[in-house]
């Protein structure tokens, strides 16, 4: 028995001129008179509702509807119709009631930092400062041992200042990890053997290593010195001649800027020695780190000769002669250096267990270059990867990364308790679709069923879209609720009806911005906000068409920009399947489509909706 839904009108910018009673009437709901409420639609987002109202509605099925975001501009009648559709959609959802909320158990607060050096110490320091018990598992015998690419002094200072709640596990390595934010299980190998412990979050920051950053083959190893091992005092020219030194900062390809800057330091130190002539070899002068351009200039002012070579254009002859072409002089130059200083790149080997045990996913999916996962975050909720392993520049950026990652961790473990995805055990077929689908590692197969780790869920709903048994749902947004909302909205929407499934990271912010600027949407457009485009399921799209929608557009993030890594790709793939079905049925496959979008691409969204309306009009 569906509940009776009340419309609770809260004024907000963008709603002026609308008559609440008319909206309620058109949407088929009752306007709230302050009396008893079974279920409700409120016209503002929850954060903006007054506290008294929030208290009044506590425990009831409520759709907090950012109504203004879906209305936009146009005449009074037009806006009324749009408001009615939006309210009807929200009411359909509210009438469905909700699953009893399943609250996350209190997540584990303790944090494991596995690694050493600046990144690891910064993370341990930050986590402790936020009140988390920290285990710092270092492969070394003490906390003060730096990674090869760290500043030893900075590391020593940080190690000396480590707060008391950091428990140091020396000569200890992480060898396996399962779980997600709030509920990790870590296998550690220490001097006393293997042990297993639970943690709320894990920071992985293995010590950095330095490797020659400049591929040049065939040079006599006796001539070569790594930049970090160079002692300039060892070199000076004889009384009456010059000693030639080559500093190699890129030959096959350009060195990264921090590596180039370190090579510049070495070149400058050498150039200051008596009668030492330094030639600096590079393909690109990478000076995009603070002070590097100055350093580059200082080097030249000190007499360092800049030798730009084409990638691969530096040749070694007889083990001791460098040969390259100088395009300006139009001739080949050769040099027999007394020493060749090699620029280095920092990095860290990837722990073997990461690839097999923790994830079935490749590294690039775990640590994608996704702007929404900057600052140490990974696709696995609660797992942070810092420093050399991530390939960030040593020094200051590592501290910033540790600080940003730790704040995220703290919010996850202590923030507002999120009702977690509920698995209706009696419906669950244990097919593990959700385990495979969840990009955040939240559902795990434990014992005989699925358990969701408490603090990892972002409610993207990709699991729910995948579950064939409708057994799993992000809080309150299972398939039945979605369908009820869709049906209610399409029942009210004027012809031609259309649906825009709008991702909360891209499509919906763009739509809100358009509405706020007075953009006039087609009257029959149902805007259906989703947390992530990945929540669109085949059922949802085909049901929209069955209910009379002439077109369906899903606006999700561009590939590589999805907060849930693959939600956009999943959505696009689903739509492609529906397109195939439509084609087989002899219907226009173009009636459904996926629009890759960024939240600031309002113009592109308006154009796509306009095109959708033109098609719907024709259909």
């Amino acid at each position, binding site marked *: 028995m569906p509940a009776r839904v009340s419309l609770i009108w809260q004024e907000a910018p963008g709603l002026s001129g609308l008559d609440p009673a008319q909206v309620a009437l058109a949407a088929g709901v009752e306007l709230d008179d302050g009396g008893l409420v079974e279920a409700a639609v409120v016209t503002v987002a929850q954060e903006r509702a007054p506290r008294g109202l929030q208290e009044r509605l506590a425990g009831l099925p409520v759709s907090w509807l950012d109504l203004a975001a879906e209305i936009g501009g146009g005449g009074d009648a037009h806006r009324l119709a749009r408001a009615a559709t939006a309210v009807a959609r929200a009411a359909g959802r509210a009438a469905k009631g909700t699953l009893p909320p399943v609250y996350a158990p209190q997540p584990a607060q303790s944090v494991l930092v596995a690694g050493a050096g600046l990144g690891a110490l910064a993370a341990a320091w930050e986590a402790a400062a936020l009140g988390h018990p920290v285990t710092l598992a270092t492969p070394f015998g003490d906390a003060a041992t730096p990674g090869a690419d760290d500043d030893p002094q900075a590391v020593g200072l940080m190690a000396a200042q480590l707060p008391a709640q950091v428990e140091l596990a020396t000569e200890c390595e992480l060898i396996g990890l399962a779980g997600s934010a709030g509920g990790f299980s870590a296998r550690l190998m220490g001097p006393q053997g293997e042990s297993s412990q639970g943690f709320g979050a894990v920071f992985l920051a293995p010590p950095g290593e330095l490797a020659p950053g400049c591929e040049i083959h065939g040079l006599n190893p006796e001539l070569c010195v790594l930049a970090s091992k160079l002692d300039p005092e060892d070199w000076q020219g004889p009384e009456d001649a010059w000693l030639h030194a080559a500093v190699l900062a890129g030959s096959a390809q350009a060195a990264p800027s921090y590596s180039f800057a370190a090579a510049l330091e070495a070149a400058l130190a050498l150039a200051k020695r008596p009668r030492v002539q330094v030639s600096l070899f590079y393909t690109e002068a990478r000076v995009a780190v603070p002070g590097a351009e100055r350093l580059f200039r200082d080097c030249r002012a000190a007499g360092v000769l800049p030798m730009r070579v084409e990638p691969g254009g530096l040749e070694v002859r007889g083990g001791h002669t460098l040969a390259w072409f100088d395009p300006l002089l139009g001739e080949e130059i050769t040099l027999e250096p007394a020493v060749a200083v090699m620029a280095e790149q920092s990095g860290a080997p990837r722990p073997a267990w990461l690839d097999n045990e923790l994830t079935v996913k490749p590294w690039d999916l775990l640590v994608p270059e996704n702007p929404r996962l900057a600052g140490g975050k990974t696709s696995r909720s609660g797992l942070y990867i810092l420093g050399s392993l991530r390939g960030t520049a040593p020094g200051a950026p590592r501290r910033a*990364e540790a*600080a940003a990652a*730790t704040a995220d961790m703290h919010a996850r473990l202590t923030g507002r308790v999120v009702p977690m995805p509920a698995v209706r055990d009696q419906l669950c077929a244990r097919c593990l679709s959700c385990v495979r689908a969840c990009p955040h590692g939240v559902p795990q197969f434990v014992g005989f069923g699925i358990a969701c780790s408490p603090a990892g869920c972002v409610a993207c709903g990709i699991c729910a879209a995948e579950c064939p048994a409708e057994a799993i749902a992000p809080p309150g947004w299972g398939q039945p609720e979605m369908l009820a909302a869709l049906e209610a909205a399409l029942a009210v929407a004027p012809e031609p009806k259309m649906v825009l499934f709008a991702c909360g*990271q891209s499509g919906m912010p763009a739509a809100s911005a358009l509405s706020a600027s007075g953009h006039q949407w087609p009257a029959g457009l149902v805007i259906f906000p989703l947390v992530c485009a990945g929540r669109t399921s085949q059922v949802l799209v085909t049901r929209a068409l069955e209910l009379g929608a002439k077109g369906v557009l899903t606006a999700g993030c561009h590939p590589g920009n999805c907060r849930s890594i693959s939600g956009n790709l999943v959505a696009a793939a689903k739509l492609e399947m529906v397109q195939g079905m439509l084609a087989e049925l002899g219907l226009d496959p173009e009636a459904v489509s996926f629009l890759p979008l960024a939240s600031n691409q309002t113009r592109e969204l308006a154009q796509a909706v306009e095109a959708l309306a033109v098609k719907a009009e024709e259909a």
Partner: protein
Amino acid sequence: MNPAEIDTPVLIIGGGVAGLSAAVELSRRGLASTVVEREAAPGGRAGEFCCKAVAACARCGACRLGDLLAEAAARPEITLHTAALVTSAEQKDGLWTVELSPQPAGDDAPGPGAPLGERCSLTTGAVILAVGGQVFDPAGKSRFAHGRVEGVHSALELEAMLAMGAIGPGAMAPAKVAFIQCVGSRDAAGGRPWCSRVCCGYALRMARVIRHRLPETEVTFFHMDVQDYGRAWEEELPSLKEDIRFVRAMPGEVTAGEQGPRVVFAGPEGAPVSEGFDLVILSVGIGPPNGAGSLHELFGAAPDQDGFLAEEGPDGLFVAGAAAGPRSLNESITHAGLAASRAAARVGALLEAARG
């Protein structure tokens, strides 16, 4: 110190990505903050940037401003004053007292936050300066003819043109576009001896957006060196080099031709060559924040050797984002995390000391 004297634990000057991120990060740490924005709407420079995705996200981070604005609006710990100017700042007994005065703002200032109503003074435990960097005014390099020759635009103007759809099929369709790099960067003679870090990335990505919209358009990239830009950059470069003509030469000037601007540069033989383009884009660099001098005076923030604000100034003063040096949006967001952490530690220490 009496904790009751504190109006807001942390005061953040600047409501761009760095300032908003600092506020969000503090909120994640459970600390309230007040953000003060000079303009009528928060967002700062990032609000003018276009999405640079073509087949996939270009990782420019321009879209993250929207996330931040939404999150800042949703978090009750964050108070946002727009159209507010800092008029004085004073530190006493470890606390900062900062006076704010309202600026004239438009009637319907968009976005979250409310214009500051009246002059007020706030006492706070920590101040984060997140005032951003200043984009180089191409008038400072008059040889590139910005404002003098039609068709010459700064990269910032191109951002807006691309965002508004002014370039593409059915709009302006230039046959030849040139990018001139290092305008106001790597310029020791001009008193700007630093690499602005972001220009190679944004220019090549906007070039790719133009090529994506208008596959017939030829794009030339005049540069000294290609800087690195993010982790996957090295893998991206080869395909960019196939798509775009890379010319390693700093152009000497832009002149007015009959058909449009002409770029004068050293040709492959060394002698000057003048080539016509429909559009010449000046990739302007990032400099120290506007009014760095007055902020320096107000807060005693020490400038570094290039005039950017040193990351840690006097007690309780922190700097986030491009005000401390050229940074991409993503880097500014991460960098703000560090300023937030330091500010939080500072406020924690103050409270602890107050408790005895």
